[in-house]
């Protein structure tokens, strides 16, 4: 079984080509303001000198990604000028929406995905064919990536490609390359920095496994490489004395704890708890002042939005993320095994998502995509992934709020569910009988036992009743939000459907975080 050849690359090419066809068909779909944001960055980097990139205020969509991304936009802008010069015009290009710009920008996203495909190829080239194919199906056909990148418009596929590439090097034990790629990724999008502590501890510990001299050599090589990368990114701005301005643009803490649509994380519970408490206390006769700003309005200023519970500052969230990370860091320090790297990194992003400051719902991609690599390893992982990817894909539904894309997002999610169900059951039902004594499946049963009691008997991939109930609940939430709420309440309480999605999905993601934490703590102890 272990000697079976890896799946042929021609099959991967086929999947990529079919996925590309679908992406091309999605070109005329709804685009969010991110489309104009990226168009503006093309114009900004093309027509202004580097010293003004982070100071310009022609459009409200100022550059708030690190320099490598700006360089990437600069590179694209030359092609853009060849296609249509208006795209890169700083003033005439504002809110430009002709066919040429749509086609050009959509195609750049599709082309940039090749980075993701290379990473997937690299990760699965030594895999068993069935596992490899499943990873392809989970990553290449990820409904979340299609929704966020190819409808909503962003370049996540490209960035996650770099992350997966880094994980692929780490899992082969090539720490230097893995670390460098992560440094490059940080210079593309700083939101990936949540995993930096894990990388730091892991790489530091990896350096000092053998003799001190060798370790010191490796460490200094890594240090020099990382410093060079950061210097390449930020050097020009340090030269212009703009470092403070760049950092101010990249970390807009003034934006508040939650995004306009609450990402399904821990703070949703905190806000709801605050509302409930203030309501109860007011009923009991306490004098509770209503907060001046509300969360449902969108932008949140400096004043506290909480009536009862203490104010949350960026520092609080930072400490909470570090605390959440600490078990994982200890594990990584004790036994830095390459095979666990993907799991730890995904866990770091989950923690960041749950406790971070001003988290976007799209950030759930950062852990769902890497977890696809671990999902094929055991039955328990597969079940967890099945749950998590459905929940987080559903939590992205409010991104595409227009009616036109409704069938598309629903069909994408359904297709993903059927594909996961078929793929996982083919993988585990076939092999469960063959290696009933293998430690892998025993571990899987152990971690999945609480969720469903009926699993142990079959041994194959089944969906437990708790999962079923929870997923059925998603259906109810969606039915309420889409049909019953407008029908019964009309325009009253317009924020309730979104709030329900946030709260309901927050339970699912919270559970996933606990599950991941448990599996990390229990692993090899």
């Amino acid at each position: 079984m272990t000697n079976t050849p890896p799946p042929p690359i021609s099959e991967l090419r086929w999947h990529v080509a079919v996925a590309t066809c679908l992406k091309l068909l999605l070109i005329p779909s709804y685009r969010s303001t991110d489309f104009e944001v990226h168009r503006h960055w093309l114009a900004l980097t093309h027509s202004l000198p580097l010293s003004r990139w982070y100071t310009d205020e022609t459009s409200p969509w100022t550059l708030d990604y690190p320099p490598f991304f700006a360089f990437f936009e600069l590179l694209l802008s030359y092609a853009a000028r060849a296609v249509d010069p208006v795209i890169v015009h700083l003033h005439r290009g504002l809110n430009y929406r002709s066919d040429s710009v749509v086609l050009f920008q959509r195609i750049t996203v599709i082309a940039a995905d090749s980075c993701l495909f290379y990473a997937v190829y690299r990760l699965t080239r030594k895999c068993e064919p069935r596992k490899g194919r499943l990873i392809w199906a989970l990553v290449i056909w990820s409904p979340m990536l299609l929704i966020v990148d190819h409808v909503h418009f962003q370049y996540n596929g490209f960035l996650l490609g770099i992350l997966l590439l880094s994980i692929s090097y780490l899992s082969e034990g090539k720490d230097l390359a893995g670390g460098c790629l992560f440094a490059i990724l940080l210079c593309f999008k700083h939101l990936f920095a949540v995993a930096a502590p894990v990388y730091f501890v892991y790489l530091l510990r990896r350096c000092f496994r053998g003799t001190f001299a060798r370790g010191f050599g490796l460490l200094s090589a890594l240090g020099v490489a990382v410093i060079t990368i950061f210097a390449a990114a930020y050097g020009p701005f340090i030269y212009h004395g703009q470092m403070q301005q760049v950092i101010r643009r990249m970390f807009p803490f003034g934006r508040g704890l939650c995004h306009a649509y609450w990402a399904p994380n821990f703070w949703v519970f905190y806000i709801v708890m605050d509302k409930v408490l203030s309501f109860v206390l007011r009923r009991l006769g306490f004098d509770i002042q209503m907060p001046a700003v509300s969360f449902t309005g969108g932008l949140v200023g400096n004043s506290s939005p909480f009536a009862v519970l203490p104010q949350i500052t960026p520092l609080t969230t930072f400490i909470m993320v570090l605390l959440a990370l600490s078990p994982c860091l200890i594990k990584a320090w004790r036994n830095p095994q390459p095979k666990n790297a993907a799991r730890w990194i995904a866990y770091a992003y989950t923690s960041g998502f749950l406790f971070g400051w001003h988290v976007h719902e799209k950030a759930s991609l950062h852990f769902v995509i890497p977890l696809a690599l671990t999902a094929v390893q055991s039955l328990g992982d597969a079940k967890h992934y099945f749950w998590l990817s459905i929940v987080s894909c559903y939590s992205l539904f409010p991104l595409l709020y227009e009616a036109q894309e409704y069938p598309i997002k629903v069909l994408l999610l359904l297709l993903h569910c059927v594909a996961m169900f078929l793929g996982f059951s083919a993988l585990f039902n076939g092999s469960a009988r063959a290696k009933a004594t293998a430690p892998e499946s025993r571990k899987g049963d152990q971690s999945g036992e609480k969720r469903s009691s009926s699993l142990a008997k079959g041994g194959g991939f089944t969906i437990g009743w708790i999962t079923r109930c929870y997923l059925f609940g998603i259906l109810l939430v969606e039915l309420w939000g889409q049909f019953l709420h407008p029908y019964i309440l009309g325009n009253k309480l317009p924020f309730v459907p979104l709030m329900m999605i946030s709260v309901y999905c927050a339970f699912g993601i919270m559970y996933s975080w606990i599950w991941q934490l448990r599996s990390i703590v229990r692993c090899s102890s």
Partner: protein
Amino acid sequence: MEKKKAKKTTHVGDAARDGADAPWGWLTHRGVVPTFSFVSLFGLLVRAAVSLHPYSGAGTPPKYGDFEAQRHWMEITINLWARDWYVNGTLNDLSYWGLDYPPLTAYQSYVHGLFLKLFDPDSVALFSSRGYETYFSKLLMRWTVLSSDVMVFFPAVFCFWIVYNRGRSRGGERCDTAWHIAMLLINPCLILIDHGHFQYNCISLGLTVGAVAAVLSQKDLIACALFSLALNHKQMSAYFAPAFFSHLLGKCLRRKNPFFEVSRLGLVVIGTFAVVWWPYLYSSDALLQVLSRLAPFERGIYEDYVANFWCATSVLIKWKRLFLTPELKLFSLIMTVSTCLPSMIHQIASPSSQGFLYGLLNCSLSFYLFSFQVHEKSILLPLLPASLLALDDPSLYKWLTHYGLLSMFPLMRRDRLLLPYTTLNALYFLLHHVPRDRRDSEVTSSSAAYTILTAFSVCCYFGLHLVYLTMHAPEKYPFLFEALIMIFCFFQFALLAIYTNKKQWTLSKHLMLLNKEKKLI
């Protein structure tokens, strides 16, 4: 014979490894329903994505296009009484997209009109809604096509697929059968016309597929009823009528009491027609009025540039100038019937399931090539039986699809559907050549002439696309490239028609040989 045997043994080999490491083992190991639902979800996704693109006549007053025609029929049917639908009057201006399909289309428009009225009453208001194209009304219209597909075409394909595979009943071919569903459901021409250009072909084609499934499972009465419904949805379904007629007749003749059997089928057909035409049966005038709307002979023998005999030969013989319409009607009738005859005779003489499917293909191709007033969209009709036969002759279906697409290329450009056109072309090619680990790679002993012909055709195929997109036609012949595409496609279709007719006839010999062998054993 030896070749066939060899193929069988490799299939057994496949079966042993099925599920484990076959590329599509994961898709098929759970059985029929999950496989079908997976492929049909993908098919729906492709349809939904294509429906994001423009439709025929989007934002082009005063006549707009097929989208407006369908919307106008909804407006007419929900605001007027059924007997006024086909009559010119103060409320119903037949010169503006008058209803020219049989009553079932009108009923379908009525139901969809009610759906639109429920959510957006303005979109179907009498008169004031002409050219009504808001974001929401467009969506509602698109969704009516999607839902028709889900409710008619997909179930019909499912039935056909089950029946067809039961007939073949060979294990270890799950991957092939899954591929067959993809071929049936992701037919690029049908998707482009229904979800891009905007029509409801999925309903009449779905009813036809249902009828075919019923024929294959020996439920002839249901088949008659379903096919009559298909005829009543689009008169173009008559392209298949000779095949149904000859096959069912051939079957009846082999039974104990042929006359009784035939009259039973006839009664079902008449009964179905009577039910559908009920509102117009009160007087012969009303009936004739509807019938005259259905046969628009005044439009001429061909329209635009369609790759059929009349249009292709009109380069040399100016049919429209040399002959009057009645003469042309006679010519086309004679040509169509005489080219259908071989396959009809074959089915009357020796009716068989496989022969029936080839009969459908041959008859519809004859109609496409020789009948009166053919649209470029009518290539969908020969494509349907070709897709049903995809497992039997994959290259035939591929050839017909790609040239069918090419023949619609000028139409797609007019509708601004080039992006979905190109993408679906590529998608179809990819799905057709899905990676399967087949030990028996299809080794066809092809002659040099055949190879050269294929290479030449493929070069022409790409060359014509390129030329049509990049070059301007000379002033003197503004439609030069359309004519070139049309003539090229005509030759391809004519060759295919000869090939499929030959195949239908050799099929029976092959079967007879098989039977003889069985008897000998």
